[in-house]
């Protein structure tokens, strides 16, 4: 353990924890928007996979990382449109339709990867951007201010979404639609338009979360996300539907993951126990769900389609 408690190891772990939490943060913030308006999107993992593949493949073809990231976001938007049609317009059972989207994403990305790429080829990963001055602060600079742009964007988004939800008319509408769509509707707020907007934003962020994974890892493989999208959904509950709560959850998750990785590479965790260590995040999540469920209430209309006049 003493190997882990060196300054260098700790700084590296914190830095990697922040980097690892970015995809969770993007996906979970997107999911928060949807859930606050009353739409449960369980397809996040599938959309992340599609976004990651779109990014990977575009970068492979064009060599341009930013075009790739855009492609990831665009695929997210398309899936958002599908999700919105299914969940909002067709009023499907959201607890299940999302599993369908997940399976679709899982299958299609595997299919396309095998068919279009075949043998895995790495793409260049996004370079870190050192923020001037701040990045030069000893230790702190290394931990917080030498990441790639997508990581900064993910963290900035917490502030943006907190502001949108709490300080704008649109945010108030989103919350009203999620709590009492009939009342919102009677006051002239379009439930359908509000939910379409949040679902589109949410899925675009899920696509970008996938893109972030792809450009950080520089590769794609079957089931690249390994369930991260589902964990992102759990983080929304963990964060009690608040952007700041989601931030705390994502950071915790990233830090735990980074610590486990560091301990593994330092040999602190014996080989046999590494499988058990890998289940720690899921177990923590279940416990967190119990705690949160006792204290916070989910949006009252969550996963309930709105039918006017009933």
């Amino acid at each position: 353990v003493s190997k882990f408690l060196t300054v260098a190891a700790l700084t590296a772990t914190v830095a990697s924890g922040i980097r690892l939490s970015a995809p969770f943060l993007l996906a979970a913030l997107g999911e928060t928007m949807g859930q606050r308006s009353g739409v449960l999107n369980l397809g996040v993992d599938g959309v992340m996979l599609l976004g990651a593949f779109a990014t990977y493949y575009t970068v492979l073809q064009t060599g341009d990382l930013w075009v790739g990231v855009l492609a990831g976001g665009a695929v997210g938007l398309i899936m958002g449109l599908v999700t919105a049609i299914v969940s909002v317009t067709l009023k499907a059972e959201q607890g299940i339709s999302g599993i369908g989207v997940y399976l679709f994403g899982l299958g299609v990305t595997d299919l396309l990867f095998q068919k279009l790429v075949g043998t895995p080829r790495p793409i260049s990963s996004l370079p870190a951007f050192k923020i001037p001055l701040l990045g030069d602060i000893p230790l702190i600079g290394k931990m917080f201010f030498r990441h790639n742009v997508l990581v900064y964007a993910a963290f900035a988004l917490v502030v943006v979404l907190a502001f949108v939800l709490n300080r704008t008319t649109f945010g108030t509408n989103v919350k009203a639609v999620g709590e009492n769509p009939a009342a919102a509707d009677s006051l002239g707020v379009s439930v359908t338009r509000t939910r379409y907007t949040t679902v589109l934003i949410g899925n675009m962020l899920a696509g970008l979360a996938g893109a972030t994974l792809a450009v950080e890892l520089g590769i794609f493989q079957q089931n690249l996300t390994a369930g991260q999208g589902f964990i992102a959904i759990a983080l929304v509950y963990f964060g009690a539907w608040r952007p700041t709560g989601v931030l705390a959850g994502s950071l915790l998750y990233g830090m735990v993951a980074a610590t486990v990785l560091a301990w593994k590479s330092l040999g602190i965790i014996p080989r046999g126990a590494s499988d058990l260590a890998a289940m720690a995040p899921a177990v923590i999540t279940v416990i967190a769900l119990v705690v949160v469920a006792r204290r916070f209430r989910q949006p009252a209309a969550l996963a309930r389609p709105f039918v006017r006049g009933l």
Partner: protein
Amino acid sequence: MVATKVTRLWKRSRGRLRVGSLAPVIAAVGALVVGAVMLWALGASPLHAYRVLFQEAFGSVDALASTAVKAIPLVLVGVGITIAFRANVLNIGGEGQMVVGGLTATVTALAFPRLPAPVLIPLVLLGGAAGGALWGGIPGALKAYFNVNEILSTIMLNIVAVQVMNSLLRGPLLDQTQVGGLSRVPQTERLSHSADLPILIGGTRLHAGVLVALIAAAAAYVLLWRTTLGFRLRAVGLSREASRYAGMPVRRTITLALALSGAMAGLAGAVLVFGSESHRMVTDGTTTGFTGAAGFNGIVVALFGGLHPLGTVLASFLFGGLLVGGNALQRAVQVPSALIVALNGLIVVFVVSTEFVRRRARLRPESPEGARDVGPGPEPAVEPEPLAAGTDLVEP
């Protein structure tokens, strides 16, 4: 005379036939059309591909036997999903429950290597069901007593299950002959011969697991519609409030619904181990490596089968064929079988996008919104049992 009778019967049945009951057919056709577009985009002839798929799935005795074998876990998981769904609980944890069921069944077989087949087979099946019941009962109890959304907890327990499997198969349960070897395939030793599920038709892979699945489906039907417990499950599914006023133990029923659902999935896990050709439990590090994604596909067949055990059996046979035929696509038209996973996803989306599921299961009575929302003020603070997260997912 006969002709008029037939016409009358047809007319009457047509009167009853609404668009809703055609929904699964529409969904399947829709998915096949999208699948055809995908095949075409990948440079394969859709017609040829589908012909190969059908031929390989249903074209011969061998094909039918393989299809039936693939259908076994789907039937079991699907029937389990149906039970949970009828009680208004969504079980997304079939994958994890299958894995744990497979593990407990394996441990049971390892513990009693000397028992004769007539004793050992039922015992290992029970072992599997018990493991699955435990893995389903945990989220059930968390939902009933701690208000935890079962969708999330079952998904998290899937993640936990796969790690338990990996650590057991790489550690305590590892085949001793693998220990010294270089590759160390994470698998158990060949399990007791007495635990092998007997082959029903010589020369094929059709084993007694088919009977297990059919018996389980029949049992689920009897349970749901011929017993008090089944009535309670369905009553709780229709209205938790009304059931509580009627004096039913709502929390216990919810826990039981997920435990029973998990038991079915656990049984599926056991059948996978003892009906496999290698007669041992192997892991490739993922759940789907063991389950073949049956935990998720079980949701597909349950929905497709109208959340009824009989429908689930028929749907499983169909989807079993899709899986068998899908494997043949790789050889015949060079399209990876991942296409089938994508198609299954589409079918789920298509089926739930129709009125079908809601109407069939009557999960959403006529007024899906309102009643409680426009009630006198917010009342969660004084509600005796706060509605669980998952509750709101399907209850008005």
